[in-house]
């Protein structure tokens, strides 16, 4: 099955090292896992880019391939069951053509990653200070004392009170929200060009989620970094993302500037998602709009468009042929045969 969404980025914009320049360019990314039941195409020809200073969101439900995409960017997909093809260009260099030493020099320094589970992404046997300072020691050759002093500064930067005392604490002495702030501080240590945040607030309480996300975006802006944020919740990124990519069953089905996507979604899946989320800003109706059916089994993807079995607008063509990602405006693309308006 060939996908046509592997087209080039819309326009190349200003040179690479200025705001708005191309930082990360992913072309025709495909990730396959071999399992006992057969090969699973977790990601199926995905192309997207992140520009300098930009916050880009990838939104999709579990199993849509968004987390595999995030992991593949740092070459963290285990090689044994996984196969990654396509190009991942970071400042023009293909990450998959680099040596192990080269990619390790980029991890944590130029590209940092923030994971979903603040409980497990910190090592319980090391102090907070040591862990936050670690990237500095690895990448900047900082001495242990310097790294610790800088760690305290970083913790202060993420609103942790009494950072000089807190650096001597262990992760279990921090609450979930605080741990996630610690991982943010850790990621920010080397002022990376790109932060990849995989569901950074999903494991947190509602009131803490907003706090942490706000802080994360602030830090990204302060450091003039870019961020790729992966989430399953369209609401979470609505106010923060510049551009949004919606994924379904390993493919990007819609991509647009955030305000376009939320005000004028063009793919039936995006529309379905937006209308099935209960919202506080609208009158409560008795029944929620729902997307019928179940998410597809990645082992048995339906023919044609993967959303077609659940799509209220599906036509015959959808059942046969995968629609390409086509532009509906300069910045808005969607993969759908039916010319739909939200």
């Amino acid at each position, binding site marked *: 099955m060939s996908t046509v969404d592997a087209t080039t980025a819309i326009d190349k914009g200003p040179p690479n090292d200025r705001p708005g320049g191309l930082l990360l360019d992913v072309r025709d990314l495909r990730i396959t896992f071999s399992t006992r039941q057969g090969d699973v195409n977790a990601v199926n020809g995905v192309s997207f880019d992140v520009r300098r200073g930009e916050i880009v969101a990838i939104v999709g439900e579990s199993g849509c391939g968004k987390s595999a995409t995030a992991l593949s960017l740092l070459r963290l997909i285990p090689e044994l069951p996984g196969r990654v093809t396509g190009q991942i260009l970071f400042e023009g260099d293909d990450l998959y053509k680099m040596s192990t030493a080269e990619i390790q020099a980029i991890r944590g320094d130029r590209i940092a990653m923030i994971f979903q589970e603040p409980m497990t992404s910190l090592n319980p046997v090391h102090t907070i200070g040591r862990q936050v300072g670690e990237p500095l020691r690895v990448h900047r050759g900082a001495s242990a004392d310097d790294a610790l002093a800088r760690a305290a500064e970083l913790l202060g930067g993420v609103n942790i*009170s009494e950072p000089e005392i807190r650096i001597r604490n262990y992760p279990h002495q921090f609450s979930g929200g605080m741990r996630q702030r610690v991982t943010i501080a850790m990621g920010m240590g080397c002022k990376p060009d790109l932060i990849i945040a995989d569901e950074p607030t999903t494991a947190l309480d509602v*009131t*803490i989620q907003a706090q942490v996300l706000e802080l994360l975006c602030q830090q990204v802006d302060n450091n003039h970094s870019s961020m790729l944020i992966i989430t399953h919740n369209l609401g979470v990124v609505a*106010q923060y993302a510049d551009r949004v990519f919606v994924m379904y069953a390993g493919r990007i089905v819609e991509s647009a500037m955030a*305000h376009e996507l939320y005000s004028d979604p063009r793919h039936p899946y995006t529309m379905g998602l937006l209308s099935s989320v209960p919202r506080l800003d609208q009158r409560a109706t008795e*029944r929620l709009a*729902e*997307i019928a059916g179940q998410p597809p089994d990645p082992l048995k993807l339906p023919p044609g468009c993967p959303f077609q079995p659940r799509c209220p607008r599906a036509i015959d063509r959808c059942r046969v042929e995968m629609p390409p990602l086509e532009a509906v405006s300069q910045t808005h693309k969607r993969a759908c045969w039916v010319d739909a308006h939200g």
Partner: protein
Amino acid sequence: MADTNSGALVEAESLSVHFPRHRSATRPGIAAVDRIDLKIHRGEILGLVGESGCGKSTLARTLLGLIEPSGGVVRFGGDSIGNLPERQMRPYRRRMQIVFQDPYSSLNPRMRIGETIAEAMFIHGHATKSDAAPLVADLLKLVGLDPAMAGRFPHEFSGGQRQRIGIARALAVRPEFIACDEPVSALDVSIQAQIVNLLHDLREKMGLTFLFVSHDLAVVRHISDRVAIMYLGRIVEIAPKERVYDEPLHPYTQALLLAVPVPTRTSQKRSARKVMQGEVPSPLNPPSGCHFHPRCPHAFAPCALKQPPLREVATGHFVACHLYEPQQRSAEPDHAEDSARREGQTPHGGGSQVMSTNPGQMIERSGEYR
């Protein structure tokens, strides 16, 4: 509440649940549920909202007799069931059920789903081995599954389908009351609406009474008649749905409502959201007085000293907040100053964060009730 016992199917009276800090500890434990009074009326859906660790799940399980209360009374249909031995509890088990958050671990992976559903029927004599099959099929149909799937194992189903099976199992004993513990929060967004709608339809069809536990105010609004907000083991506000969403009184309820992300975006520019600062304090060492006061933008003198009682401030609208104490009315206009004064103070309890609040934003909200 004006109603009498006759209207309440499930009732908690000064209900407390303490968990020991350590196996051998003699000190008083963590108060997961702290002297709660609650009535769930026949045929209503009560939403119970709070953040993790606030004791909402513990409260639900205690109402079902799955956890023994440390103090207070649980009544079901007027009978006290708090500390009944398992054998005497059995007749009540048939009348109340639970639906779990995690559709993956709440079904026995070694049992076919038909067996899981039928087991409940056998226990209470609703069916025998020979006539269970059609009953199971009916239940599966009722929850929107193909009856032909009864012979499959749980791992052959997706999360949403498993949650339907969990609901079918709960319905199998023909209960009067079902407690749903975060029934949709582990599901994909596109599936959540399906399950909420299913529960809604079931209530319409069967006249069941529900307790719907969730951390998501937006979901709760869709399904509940009344909503109770919990914070660190206490109910801070309880009112009919419209009032909670249109006129939230407790500052915590207001903060929760503000924290719900809204999937809209009008401007091209990113905009910062107004967010509440501070951590949820540890229930091991809750703040004095009103547990919320270290994070509260309106906190003033009595808040740190005295626990506010749950008082009825309008018909059916109860709130536990000193702002609404009759003698404190005069203090109300000073919120902004109170909170401004609080900034920079040392924190209380387990959270270490000093609040930096947005008094203006909170006042905006509070303008609605003044």
